[in-house]
C-alpha cells in the first residue's frame, strides 16, 4: 500500500500535485464529532506532513482548536481514525496516550503554565518528571531554552508577571524542552502585536528548519500563515480544503476566497468612503 498523500485524502485540494512530502505524520480519516447535538465535523479527512509547517485556518467556531485537541487525544471523536506518529490515538487508553504524548509538545493559546510555580519550575517540569537528569543539568537545559525563545532573565518570575507574548514564548520553551517530534500550536499569534507575531513566527520557523519538527498551527492571521506554511488547511463547514499557499492564493473556491479577501486593504471599512 502506497503512502497516503495529501492529494488523496483531503476533501478537496487545489491541485492534483502537491510539492509537500507524501509522508504524513498526522492523519485524520472520516472523523465525526458533535458537541451537544451540534455537529462539528462529519467525515473529515486530512493530513499533515512530516517535518513541515501546516497551518489550520478557518473562521471562529470552525473547529480548528478542536482538531488539535483530537490529534492530542484530549478529545475523542465519535467515529473515525486519527493516526499520530503511526499510532491510532482513538484506540489508546489514557495511560497509552501518555506514552504517545512524549513525542508531542503542545502550545496552548494562553500558555497553560501552572500559575502557582515559577517560570523555571514550569519549564523544568517535563525534565523533572520524566528524566533522571541532575538539577544542575536541568538548570542548564532550562536556561538554554529560555534564552532561545528570548526570555533569558525570567526564571524566577511567576506566570502572572509576564505579558501575553512572553507567556507564550515561555510555554513554547516548555513544550520543546523534551525534544518532541511534533509540536501543536493553538492560536500562537492571537492577541499579539505585530512585533511579537514576527518573533513567534521566526521561532517556529527556526524550530522547523533546524530541528525538523512537524508543526501544526491554528491561526487566523493570514499574512504570517501565507508566509510560513508549507501546507494550509481550511476548515469550512466541517470540511477540509488543503493546498500550498501559492495554490490557495489563486483558489476559486468561494469560501476560501471570502476568507482571504477579508484581509485585503483596498476595500474601505465604511462603504462610500475613500480608501
Amino acid at each position, binding site marked *: 500500500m502506497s503512502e497516503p498523500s495529501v492529494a488523496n485524502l483531503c476533501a478537496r485540494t487545489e491541485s492534483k500535485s502537491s510539492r509537500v512530502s507524501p509522508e504524513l505524520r498526522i492523519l485524520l480519516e472520516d472523523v465525526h464529532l458533535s458537541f451537544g447535538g451540534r455537529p462539528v465535523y462529519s467525515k473529515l479527512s486530512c493530513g499533515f506532513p512530516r517535518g513541515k509547517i501546516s497551518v489550520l485556518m478557518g473562521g471562529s467556531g470552525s473547529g480548528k482548536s478542536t482538531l488539535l485537541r483530537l490529534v492530542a487525544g*484530549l478529545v475523542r471523536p465519535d467515529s473515525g481514525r486519527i493516526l499520530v506518529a503511526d499510532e491510532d490515538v482513538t484506540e489508546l487508553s489514557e495511560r497509552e*496516550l501518555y506514552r504517545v*504524548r512524549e513525542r508531542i509538545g*503542545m502550545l496552548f493559546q494562553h500558555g*497553560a503554565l*501552572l500559575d502557582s510555580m515559577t517560570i523555571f519550575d514550569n519549564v523544568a517540569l517535563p525534565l523533572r*518528571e520524566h528524566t533522571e537528569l541532575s538539577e544542575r543539568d536541568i538548570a542548564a537545559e532550562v536556561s538554554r531554552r529560555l534564552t532561545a525563545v528570548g526570555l533569558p532573565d525570567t526564571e524566577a518570575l511567576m506566570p502572572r508577571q509576564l505579558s501575553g507574548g512572553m507567556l507564550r514564548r515561555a510555554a513554547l520553551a516548555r*513544550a520543546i524542552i*523534551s525534544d518532541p517530534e511534533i509540536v501543536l500550536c493553538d492560536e500562537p499569534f492571537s492577541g499579539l502585536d505585530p512585533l511579537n507575531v514576527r518573533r513567534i513566527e521566526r521561532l517556529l520557523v527556526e524550530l522547523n528548519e533546524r530541528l525538523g519538527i512537524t508543526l501544526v498551527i491554528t491561526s487566523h492571521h493570514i499574512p504570517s500563515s501565507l508566509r510560513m506554511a508549507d501546507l494550509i488547511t481550511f476548515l469550512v463547514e466541517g470540511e477540509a480544503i488543503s493546498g500550498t499557499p501559492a495554490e490557495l492564493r489563486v483558489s476559486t473556491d468561494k469560501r476560501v476566497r471570502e476568507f482571504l479577501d477579508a484581509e485585503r486593504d483596498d476595500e474601505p471599512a465604511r462603504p462610500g468612503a475613500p480608501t
Partner: protein
Amino acid sequence: MRLAAIETLGFRTVTFVTHLGRIAAFVGSIFVHSVRPPWRVRRLVGEVFDIGVLSLAIVCLSGATVGAVLGLQGYTTLSRFGAANSLGAVVGLSLVRELGPVLTALLVTGRAGSAMAAEIASMLTTEQLDGLRMMSIDPVDFVVKPKALAMLISMPMLNALFICFALFGGYVVGVKLLGVDGGTYITSMENAITWEDDVAGTLLKSFIFGALVGVIATYRGYTATPTSAGVSAATTGTVVVASVTILLFDYVITALWGV
C-alpha cells in the same frame, strides 16, 4: 402528565447513580495514585501548608470562642442544679464528642475546601490540567492527590487543636471569670473523657470528615464547567455538599459508635 414526573424522577435517579459511580471511580483513582510513587512529598508539604497552616487562625480563634461560650452556658445551667463543679466534664465531653470534629470540619470546608475546589476548577478553565496531560503527567496524581491527602492529614490535627483551644476558652471563662475551682474543672474533665469512648471517636470522625471534604472539594473542582460561572458553582457547591455530608455522617458515626 404524571408520566412526565415519573420520567423526571427516573432520569434524576439515573443521573445521581451515575454521579456516584463517577465519584467512586475518582476516589479509586486517587487511592491508586496514593499508594504508588512518585510520592510528591514537596507538593504534599505545600498543600498541608495551604490547608492546615492557613486554617490555624480561624480554627484556633473559633475554638477559643466556642469554648468560652460553652463555659458560660454550661455554668449557667449547671449552677442551677448545684453541679457547677462538673463544668469541665460538660465542656470537655461536648467538645470532644461532637463540637470539635463537626465544627472544625465545617470551618475547614469553608476555608480550605472551597479554596481547593476553586483552584482546581480554575486550572481546568485555563487549560492547565490539559497542559499537564500533554506533558504526560496525570492531573489526578499531580494536583488532586496531594490536596486530598493533605486534607486527610490536617483535619484530625486541626480538630485536636480546636478542642485544646476550646478547653482553654472554657477554663478561662469558668475558672477565671465565674469562679469554678481550677483543679476541679480539670479533674472533672479528665475523669469524664476517656480514650476509648471519646478521644478515639473524635479522631475517627475527623479522619472521615477529612476524607469526605478532600474528595468532594477536589471532585467538584475537577468536574467543573470550564467557565467563570463554573468555578463559582464548584466553590459554592463544595461548601454546601460537604457541609451536609459532614452532618449526615456525623449522625451515622455517632449512632454506630454507640456513643
